[in-house]
């Protein structure tokens, strides 16, 4: 049975970007949020350290400095007009969150307090600056809760535990709706709409060590990719230097913002050698690479010599208790380590996708080097690529991204929907989805999805992580071909209709494999090192050939073709990235 619903606009994903978009859109047109999780389960809630805006509440600052840091931090792959816009709108966005009730920490005179964060500097790199607005080390949690509260207040319509599995386009290539699977019943729902905004988050679950939730399987990017639309800069994936050893659970950069330092096994503060000016507050890609180099040179700790240590034991216990309580608890619970007394074992963890569905500054999905918008199709947040993060996102800019571009995307989508006619659904809109699900449900024996997933994660960790090479990436591409074949034969044991998470995990694995393939093909092509993408066979940045965005498309025959588009430049001329 297929149920059909009709809305002016749909938001896919109930995290920060999705809810911010829905708040905007639902004021102007009928809007529904389709979310595979209850909204407050979204991974926005795991963000810890802060959200930057040049409020200058604590010390001198300006949006222009913030824009410069964002562009330099992104190793000049950032579209500069987008970064300028985001850093200017940051102030208004933070004030809006405060008006929504977000409980920011406060200065003694009652203003929003601010603290230091990696790569955020005063006057173009002179010194670290206090720019990150925060609520202890649960800023993302507070943003997620606050946006959910505002959605409750506005009675925003949610379809919770509905998995979006397909995007519907009309004959002219415009947006016509989506197809979703209701987890509770196994029913298929067709949502007909004038506009759709994807806000499905990242895809860090393709790596063995990740800070990402199990739910982060790249559903949105994979769905549009399967519909022949491009994915941008997929090779740019951030590895956060301070993941809890073994587990990858994030330990916020705020720990270093408050004065924490990173050590090798000899207890040496090695960042002094790699970034003499801002040391431990260097951007994440640099710190992760430095950890790798320390490990390679035999100064890593732990049983396999592949750990470094985050030391906050010298900080005032009051600071730890008031400003870093959650990460302190993580170390205690998961590693049985007492951070107030001893360094915490860490290793780089797959954290954030800079790449994703290409959009303009209004969240419109755009195709090709000439950036032709797809009518009615939008994306925002981690699943999108504006691009404000370029080759390496600065800490705090993801929370900023979701509120600034969630709002812009939602507003533009509502304007579009009000002026558009309801498009015709394609004939048999659910056919493709039903075929996909039936093929899995009716297969009696075949490959185990968990084994395929583990091989994907282990190999991506070994071959496409902090340090990459043609040799490793070509091997990974071959492995992915094999895993895709096996995934075509995936079999599950749960054949039921009620809460069949077995079935959904098999489908999500297919999304992950698509995203991984786009990542690896894009990374192979980019024969340079830039930001988070480091090739030990091409260790230098190559602006002459590679100051451009990658676009990956799925061909009809299943292969991937690449195209490129120029970076939108602005006032900042690429220079060597030193800190």
């Amino acid at each position, binding site marked *: 049975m297929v149920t059909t619903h009709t809305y002016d606009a749909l938001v896919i994903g109930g995290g920060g970007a999705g809810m911010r978009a829905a708040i905007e859109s639902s004021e102007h047109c009928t809007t529904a949020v389709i979310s595979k999780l209850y909204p407050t389960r979204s991974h926005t*809630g795991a963000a810890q350290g802060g959200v930057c805006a040049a409020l200058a509440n604590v010390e001198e600052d300006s949006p222009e400095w913030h824009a410069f840091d964002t562009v330099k931090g992104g190793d000049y792959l950032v579209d500069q007009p987008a970064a300028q816009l985001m850093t200017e709108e940051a102030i208004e966005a933070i004030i809006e969150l405060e008006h929504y009730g977000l409980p920011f920490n406060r200065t003694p005179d009652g203003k929003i307090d601010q603290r230091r964060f990696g790569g955020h500097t005063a006057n173009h790199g002179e010194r670290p600056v206090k720019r990150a607005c925060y609520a202890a080390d649960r800023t993302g949690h507070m943003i997620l809760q606050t946006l959910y509260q505002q959605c409750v207040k506005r009675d925003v319509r949610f379809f919770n535990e509905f998995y979006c599995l397909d995007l519907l386009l009309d004959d002219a290539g415009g947006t016509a709706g989506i197809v979703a699977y209701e987890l509770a019943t196994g029913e298929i729902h067709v949502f007909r709409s004038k506009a759709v905004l994807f806000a499905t988050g990242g895809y860090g679950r393709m790596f063995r060590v990740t800070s990402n939730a*199990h739910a982060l399987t790249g559903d949105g990017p994979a769905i549009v990719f399967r519909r022949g639309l491009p994915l941008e800069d997929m090779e740019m994936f951030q590895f956060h230097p301070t993941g809890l050893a073994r587990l990858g659970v994030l330990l916020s950069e705020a720990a270093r913002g408050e004065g924490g330092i990173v050590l090798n096994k000899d207890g040496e503060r090695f960042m002094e050698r790699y970034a003499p000016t801002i040391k431990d507050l260097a951007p994440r890609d640099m710190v992760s690479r430095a950890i790798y180099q320390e490990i390679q040179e035999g100064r890593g700790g732990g049983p396999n010599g592949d750990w470094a240590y985050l030391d906050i034991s010298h900080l005032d216990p009051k600071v730890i208790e008031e400003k870093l309580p959650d990460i302190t608890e993580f170390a205690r619970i998961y590693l049985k380590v007492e951070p107030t007394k001893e360094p915490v074992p860490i290793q780089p963890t797959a954290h954030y996708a800079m790449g994703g569905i290409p959009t303009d500054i209004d969240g419109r999905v755009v195709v090709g080097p000439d950036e032709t918008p797809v009518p009615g199709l939008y994306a925002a947040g981690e699943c999108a690529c504006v691009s404000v993060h370029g080759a390496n996102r600065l800490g705090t800019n993801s929370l900023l991204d979701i509120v600034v571009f969630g709002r812009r995307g939602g507003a533009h989508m509502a304007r579009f929907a009000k002026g558009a006619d309801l498009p015709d659904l394609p004939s048999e809109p659910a056919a493709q989805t039903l075929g996909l699900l039936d093929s899995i449900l009716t297969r009696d024996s075949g490959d185990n999805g968990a084994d395929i997933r583990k091989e994907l994660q282990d190999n991506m960790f070994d071959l496409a992580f902090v340090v990459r090479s043609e040799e490793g990436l070509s091997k990974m591409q071959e492995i992915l071909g094999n895993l895709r074949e096996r995934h075509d034969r995936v079999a599950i044991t749960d054949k039921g209709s009620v809460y069949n998470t077995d079935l959904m995990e098999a489908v999500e694995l297919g999304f992950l494999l698509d995203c991984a393939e786009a990542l690896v093909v894009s990374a192979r092509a980019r024969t340079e090192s830039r930001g988070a993408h480091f090739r030990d066979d091409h260790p230098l940045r190559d602006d002459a050939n590679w100051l451009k965005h990658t676009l990956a498309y799925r061909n009809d025959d299943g292969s991937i073709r690449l195209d490129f588009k120029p970076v939108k430049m602005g006032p900042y001329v690429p220079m060597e990235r030193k800190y």
Partner: protein
Amino acid sequence: MATAADVLSGSDDREVRGSSDKVRLTLKIRRFNPEVSDDSWWDEFVVEADPLERLVEVLHEIKWHQDGTLSFRRSCAHGICGSDAMMINGRNALACKVLVADVGTKVTIEPIRGLAVLKDLIVDMDPFLDGFKSVLPYLVNEGGEPDKERFQSPEERARYDDTTKCILCAACTTSCPVFWGDEGYVGPAAIVNAHRFIFDSRDEAGATRMKILSEKTGVFRCRTTFNCTDACPRGIQVTQAVQEVKRAILFERF
């Protein structure tokens, strides 16, 4: 004082730094599937697990290699999304914040109580969320917004800090005997979220919330058993928050 290097070399033999031997864990799990039977039943599984493994990953091991029909909610796997509240050895907890080493070699897992079980460890969250929504869980301030942030002193901010930690996992509410016996009771999580706004100096709807909570489904149903405080995976002093709301209603002190 020992240097960091001393600490590092002195602690190399710690459990966390070496691979400790796996333990054989027997899990007894209460199952329910409306497509199979009207009644629940118990299944037993044996898993070899690292003592530092999270229980949610042990459940994954069962789902992925022993019984794919085992169903539970989970997402972040580190205690912040609130998906995987369940009753573990008789106490409510998040399966991602309990380690194998914390439960010994035998563990019993059941769904949280007081909400309808839909399948295995998955319960109907809607009545819980309805309770949350009933207390106006959003900032109300009709005073006109300033261009900049509203000011709030660090002391005013600290007043409601504890109750901002809530992740709506329902561990507290479904540990409450009053909630088990009375579907109308809003439960501790809703009161925690009311507290978060009642004691926020920027909010203006405290009186309305307290009127809602002074009704028969509200805060005076609480019998102060402290189950909620014990159950909270975020360490919120839930019972204290409930008592503060009671006192505020009685004495209008907020």
